[in-house]
């Protein structure tokens, strides 16, 4: 199978995004919950290479935004009050993968300067830092839920396809039941049943579990189809004739033939599940404040004034579109490669 450049590029992008997401604390200049109440809705900081006299400097600097007296969210740049951007600076403490602690950040400016690469939100929290932490949660909720779904799908699909009979009948009726459920309402319903106040990390895991468990039906049906045709193949019959156990046949002969389909399914399901998390958090049913995810960051756009006044609040939507597109390209490249291979 030849996957081609398009596939490689998309895969690289997605890998890089997933790779850097756990290091959000390092790339983010600030903590996601740190409020700067004198700087609500500050626009993205302008990076200057020239000072007020017009002299060029290699080290960029940013100027302190100053809220105009008696207004809200209207800023002037205080050109007399500039701060050079430093790299690998010490800042707030953060954890990587929940284990390592560090205070080194990729970049930053010294206090009282503030660098807001993607502007700030209504509480003066840094948009970039929130987006990075949010990316971590949103991407991993997508991937984990996908893994859960495919795990369940493969298990149940293979059992149904390989053993047939009653197993097949029961599992396939369940599949039909799950396919018929309107998933968004189901998620809303399940979320409503769960306890009212759970802390953000529990909420996150619950969200993944709920999204993952609801979606297993479609992959299970596809896997079942493959298992059904594979079990009649000559090499499977030969293996069984030689006394191979069911587990061996499933592992050695049936499972490998589903890999291609699984990868395509993963590439299709992951963005769908990221969107599901975004939807739930957008509706206030997912991860709660102050922990950011793309969904709850986007939920402020429900307010008309934010929607029309502060364009940088759209950043999570941009990230969602980017990741969605990458996954889609990956899936379509994969599909093309498979078609040409057969």
């Amino acid at each position: 199978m030849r996957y081609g450049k398009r596939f490689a590029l998309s895969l690289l992008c997605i890998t890089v995004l997933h790779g850097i997401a756990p290091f959000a604390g390092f790339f983010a200049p600030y903590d996601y919950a740190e409020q700067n109440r004198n700087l609500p809705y500050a626009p993205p900081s302008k990076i200057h290479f020239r000072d007020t006299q017009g002299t060029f400097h290699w080290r960029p600097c940013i100027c302190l935004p100053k809220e105009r007296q008696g207004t809200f969210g209207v800023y002037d740049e205080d050109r007399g009050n500039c701060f050079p951007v430093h790299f690998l600076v010490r800042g707030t403490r953060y954890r990587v993968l929940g284990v390592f602690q560090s205070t080194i950040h990729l970049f930053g400016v010294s206090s009282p300067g503030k660098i807001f690469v993607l502007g700030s939100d209504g509480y003066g929290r840094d948009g970039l830092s929130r987006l990075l932490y949010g990316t971590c949660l949103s991407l991993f909720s997508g991937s984990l839920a996908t893994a859960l779904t495919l795990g369940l799908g493969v298990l149940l699909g293979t059992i149904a396809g390989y053993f047939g009979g009653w197993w097949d009948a029961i599992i396939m009726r369940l599949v039909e039941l799950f396919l018929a459920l309107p998933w968004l309402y189901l998620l809303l319903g399940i979320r409503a049943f769960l306890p009212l106040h759970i802390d953000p990390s529990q909420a996150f895991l619950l969200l993944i579990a709920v999204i993952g468990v609801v979606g297993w039906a479609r992959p299970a049906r596809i896997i079942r189809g493959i298992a059904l045709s594979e079990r009649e193949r000559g090499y499977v019959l030969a293996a069984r004739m030689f006394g191979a156990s069911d587990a061996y046949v499933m592992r050695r002969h049936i499972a490998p033939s589903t890999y291609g389909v699984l990868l395509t399914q993963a590439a299709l399901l992951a963005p769908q599940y990221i969107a599901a998390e975004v939807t739930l958090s957008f509706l206030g049913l997912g991860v709660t404040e102050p922990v950011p995810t793309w969904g709850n960051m986007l939920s402020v756009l429900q307010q008309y004034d934010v929607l029309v006044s502060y364009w940088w609040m759209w950043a999570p939507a941009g990230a969602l579109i980017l990741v969605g597109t990458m996954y889609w390209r990956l899936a379509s490249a994969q599909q093309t490669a498979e078609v040409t291979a057969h």
Partner: protein
Amino acid sequence: MMVRGRSVAIAAAAVLCLLGTGGLFPDLPEELAISTNEIGHPGGRLSVSLRSEPKTLNPVTSTDISSREVIAQLTSDLIHINRLSQQTEPALAKTWQVTPDGLRYTLHLRRGLRFSDGHSFDADDVVFSFKAYLDENVRSPQRDLLLVGNHPITVRKVDSYTVSVELSRPYAAAERLFDGVAMLPKHLLEGAYNSGKLSQVWSLDTPAQQIVGLGPFRLKEYVPGQRIVLERNPYFWKADHEGQRLPYLQEILFFFVPNADAEVIRFQAGESDVINRVSAEDYSVLEKDQGTRFRLWDLGPSLEFNFLFFNLNRAIPDESSALAQKQTGWFRLIKFRQAVSLAIDREAITHIVYRGRGTALWSPVTPANRLWVNLSTPHPPRSVQDARALLQSAGFSWKQDGTLLDRSLLPVEFTIITSASNTQRMKMATMVQADLKDLGIRVEIVPIEFHSLLDRIFKTHDYEAAVLGLGGGDVDPNSDMNVWSSGGNDHVWDLGEPHPSTDWEREIDLLMEQQLSALQTEKRKALYDRVQVILAEELPIICLASPNVLVGARNDVANFNPAPLDPHTLWNSPELFLARGDSRHQ
């Protein structure tokens, strides 16, 4: 078109004369009230948006804001509170006297007035109206407001144009009770009342001609899901000082929008002429277009106060639950509440939540209440250091990582519930969460649907802390009686207990009772000042901020005189007129 509008008024007057001389009605000179506002010209239609469809047009049973807003245009009361001066002024009653003991009011009605169907109005209608409001079987929400010392007021007819009102005990500012109590047409509603069906009349399906009142407008048309159109009541009891009968407007169109955003967009697009209760966020959006087609008003503080409070209910269903531990433990500690209050940055709340268009509050009476506010209540600025010192003196300590621990070394954490649909209160809760983190307190915010929020607070008492807002309809302390008195329905922090549980609650109960029957304003003020001080010191509710009243109107709406008191904008609808000429004349 102005000429045509005036000719309509003249024609109406001519019809009136004809009816009068025709002997259908007793021939009486009308005692009209005279408005001192700028003279306008008649005609035109004013479009106003409503955030929800009214549920009924029955003044006896209505409770929702939209219904009351429309009904206010269809009906009149005996004595009215002027929204600008905050004082009472004559309405259907032209004068009134009160006996020195404060127990008996005599009201003299204007003579010769007519309902919007042309039928005359007199003391029988007044007596009938109060009978209806006070009848327990009718279950009018107004009934509670007409109880003085738990006894309903007694209204008797003296002659056709005089009624007497007796109170069971002296009640300060009793004339304010009459504001908003719409007078009903006995000739139309007595039958329904006698057959016990008064609460079912005047639903939205009722034909327009059968809904009759003394207000400036009468119902013309209702289209479900879309609009309610009111037309000018030709018999309205006010005129301008040139003798021209009010209202000037030919029609008011109320159309329904789903939410505040839609309301702003429709106003921006010029589809509505007046916008009420604008949020600070939307105000800043509208501000960009201000001046061209419309003007905006920032009327300063409102009567609404938003606050954080802890569950202090004494009735605890499960003694061993975590909630019960917190209720009896931390929440009841005055020093804990004071520390929380000290750690909250109220100035930042007004800046971030209300964009500077709000007032930081330390006591529930806002500066909008010019007559009753006590400006000398303590309002200590934010100090995390002082808050920590208070907690320490109450036996709290801190873990190495900064977490606050109580006496038994349990980490201090609680949840705040608030309405998911109210973004401003959500923001307040988020800011309180960040502020209390500085004390080492972990706060979770749980946004829930508004009705289940009310359920938890008022019925099941299943919550730890909540952020809520209350907004008095009137400035008088009596209107807050049910919030501050122990047995009150809105005594949010401890409900359903008729007896006070603490000394300071006992003192508040006593002070509120005393101010109720004291007849001199100065004495009442002193008593109510003390209530405000106790509330600010004991902090059963931790006041946060009050939003400003923000409204807007198109440039050509004249005599527009918005007021901080509810309903802010259309309270002087009879005097409003359109200076744009005839473009929208119907």
